[in-house]
C-alpha cells in the first residue's frame, strides 16, 4: 500500500549509534526497548487511546512504534508543552475527557466503543473533529492540536520513524561535513524515488 518504507533502502539510524555521545545514545536507544506498562490511561481509556493514536500515527495495520506507551509515559510524568488553552482542561484531564467523548460518539454512530468501531467509522469520527467547530463544548481545533502534538512528538522521537524519512538523528559529536543541496554524508542514503511527491501522487 505505502511506499514510504523503501524510500531510503538500507538506511538504519540505530546502526550509527556508536557515533553518538553517550547521553544522547542513552535517551534515544531507551525508546527502542520494551515499553513500560501503561500508568496514565486506565480502563476503557487504554483501548480508545491506542486506537486514536495508531490512527493518527498512520500505523493501524502495523503499530511498530509504541506511540501509546510514549504518550502515556509523558502524561504520567506531567510532561506538558508548558501551556494549555484556556478553553481546555489541563492536558491529562483533556485526554481523559476527549477519549470518553470519542467512545460516546462511536456508540451513537455504531453502537460500539471507539476501539471496536470499523476503521472507516473511526476515521470519520476523527475527521469530524479536524473539520472543526464545537465538539462536546470544546473547540475542536484545540482538541486536534492536543492529540496531534502528543502523537507526533512520540512518533518522530523514534528512530524507526527517522529511518523512513531519511533523517540520521543524533549528530554529536560527529556533525556534518557535506552540507548543501544534493550533498550527502557517507552514512546518509539518497531517496530512491526523489521525484515522487507522495501526497500529490496519492491525490
Amino acid at each position: 500500500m505505502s511506499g514510504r518504507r523503501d524510500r531510503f533502502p538500507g538506511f538504519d539510524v540505530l546502526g550509527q549509534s556508536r557515533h553518538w555521545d553517550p547521553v544522547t545514545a542513552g535517551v534515544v536507544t531507551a525508546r527502542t526497548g520494551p515499553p513500560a506498562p501503561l500508568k496514565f490511561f486506565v480502563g476503557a481509556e487504554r483501548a480508545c487511546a491506542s486506537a486514536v493514536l495508531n490512527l493518527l500515527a498512520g500505523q493501524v495495520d502495523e503499530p511498530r512504534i509504541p506511540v501509546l506507551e510514549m504518550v502515556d509515559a509523558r502524561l504520567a510524568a506531567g510532561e506538558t508543552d508548558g501551556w494549555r488553552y484556556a478553553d481546555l482542561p489541563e492536558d491529562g484531564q483533556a485526554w481523559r475527557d476527549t477519549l470518553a467523548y470519542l467512545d460516546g460518539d462511536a456508540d451513537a454512530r455504531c453502537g460500539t466503543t471507539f476501539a471496536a468501531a470499523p476503521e472507516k467509522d473511526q476515521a470519520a469520527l476523527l475527521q469530524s473533529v479536524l473539520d472543526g467547530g464545537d465538539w462536546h463544548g470544546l473547540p475542536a481545533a484545540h482538541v486536534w492540536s492536543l492529540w496531534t502534538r502528543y502523537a507526533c512528538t512520540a512518533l518522530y522521537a523514534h528512530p524507526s520513524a527517522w529511518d523512513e524519512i531519511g533523517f540520521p538523528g543524533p549528530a554529536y559529536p560527529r556533525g556534518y561535513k557535506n552540507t548543501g543541496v544534493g550533498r550527502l554524508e557517507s552514512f546518509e542514503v539518497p531517496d530512491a524515488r526523489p521525484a515522487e511527491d507522495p501526497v500529490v501522487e496519492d491525490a
Partner: protein
Amino acid sequence: MPGVRSRNESAWLLPNDGTRTNHRLRRDMRRFADSDEIDLVIVGCGAGGSVLAQRLARAGWRVAALDAGPFWDPDADWVSDEAGSHGLYWTEPRVIAGADPVPLGSNNSGRGVGGSMVHYAGYTPRFHPSDFTTRSSDGVGADWPLRYADLRPYYAAIEQELPVAGEHWPWGDPHGYPHRPHPVGGNGEIFLRGARELGITAKVGPVAITNGRFGNRPHCIYRGFCLQGCKVNAKASPLITHIPDALAHGAEVRADAMVTRVAIDSRTGRALGVYYVQGGRERFQRAAMVAVAGYSIETPRLLLNSACDRFPDGLCNDFDQVGRYLMVQGAPQTAGRFDAEVRMYKAPPPEVSTEEFYETDPGKDYKRGFAIQTVSPLPITWAEHVVAQGHWGRALREYMSDYVHWSCLGALCEFLPLPENRVTLADEKDGHGLPVARFEYSQCDNDRALMRAAQAVMENILRAAGADEVITIQRYAHLVGGARMAKQKEYGVVDGNCRSFAVPNLYITDGSVLPTQGSANPALTIMAVAARAADRLAAGARGAG
C-alpha cells in the same frame, strides 16, 4: 579581536579539553548568606540577568543571580535529540487565551541558567534606528525613552562578546561583524538562489555561532540542533558568554531557586530582597537592590504575585501597566518542495536573512514590516507543518517521508504593542501554590496584513528557487514587552535605564522592558539594554537606587 578578553573572559574560562563546563569555577564560586545584604539580587539568569550580573560583578558589586532552573552542563544535561530536550523549556503550568492564543514552552520560554538563549536559533540582528520612534514616525507602536544611538555601542560590544558571524550588514545602521559568515547548507542555498532570482538582497548571518575558535570555544560542527542547546559551545548563550566571567569576578549563581515574591518595606517603599524556594524550603535573600529578569511572562507574573499593602494590585502596577503591551512576532513559516535533496537539518537553522521588508513601505496598506530568515525544523517540528495542512494518519507518514526534499523559510512580522495583549494571574496555582500566568493575545488588522505579505514573499522566493509546491504554517516567535520602558510612569513600568518608576531600588532588565520589537530576533537587544542599564548603575552609587 583585541579587547574582548580584557572585558569579558568567559570564553577563556571554559575548558579546552573537549568538555564544555568549568566545574572548578562553579565549585569555587563565591556564596552569599541569605542574611548578607548583598548589593544586588537578580531574578533570572537569561539574556538580561546574566549580562547585568557579569557587568556589575566586574564593577565590584556583590551580586547573586537566582534562577528557577538548573545550572546546565552541556555534556551531561543536553542531548542531540528533539524530544529529549524537553527539560530546556519552561513547562510549569500556564494558560493561553485570546482570539489568537500563543503557544509557550519550546516556542519561546527557556528554563535554567542561560535562559531562552539556550534554545534560541542563534540569530542576533540589531534593531533598526526606526524601531525606537515608530509612534512619531509611523503612527503606530510606541516611542522608546532612548534612541538607537544610545544602544549602538552596547550592540557592538555584545556582538564581540558572543561573537556574531555574518556578512557586512546593509540594513538599519549598516555595520560589520567580528566573525566571517558561515558556509551555508541546503536551506540557505535555496534562500540565496530564490532571492537572487527576484532581486531581493539576502545576507548570510547574523548568527551568534563561532566561526573559528573563540577563546576555548570550538568551531561549529554544523550539527543542526541549535534549538536543542549547543553541546559544542559554539552557539552563544549567557551560560558560556557571560556567566563564567561573572563567577570569576565574585558573582554567585544560585540555580534551582524559584523566586516567589519581591519584598517591599511598607514604610519606605523600597525593595528589601526576594523570597525564593530552593530544595522545598522558602528562603529570603536580603539585597540593597533587586533586578527582575524573568522574561515577558514570569516578570509580570512575579510583580503581580508580589502585591502588598503599598501595591495592592501588584508591584509597580499603580497605573495598570504591568503585563500589558506584551508582543510576539507573527512568524509564518513557508516551505517549498524540491526534487533535489535539501536536507535542511544539516547546518544550523539560522543561516540567511533579509531585512529588505523591515520598515514601512508607503506603497502598502500596512505599517512597519517583516524580516525573512531560514528556519530548518527537525522532524517533530516538521510534523507540525504537515499536520497544519490537514494531513494525519497514513497521509502524514507519506508526506513526512518526503522530509529531505523540503526547504523552509520563516518570517518575523512586527506585531504591534496592544494594551489588551497581556499577562494576568489565573485562578490555577502552580506547585508552590502561586497563581500561574494567563496570557491573552489577539492580533490586529495590521498584524494580519503583515502575515499575508510575508507569506507571499516567502512563496515567491521558494518558487523562484524552483519549488514545485509550497505550504505555510501560521506560527509565532519570541516574546517582548509586558513591563515596558516609557518616558512617564503613566505609560510604562520602568524608565529608559530599566529602573522601575514605583520602587527606586527595583530594576527590570529583560525583554519585558522593550516597547516595540521590530522584525528582529530580540536576544541581542535584550543584552544591549541590560548592558546599558549596568553601565548606568556602575557609574552611580551602588544600592542607592
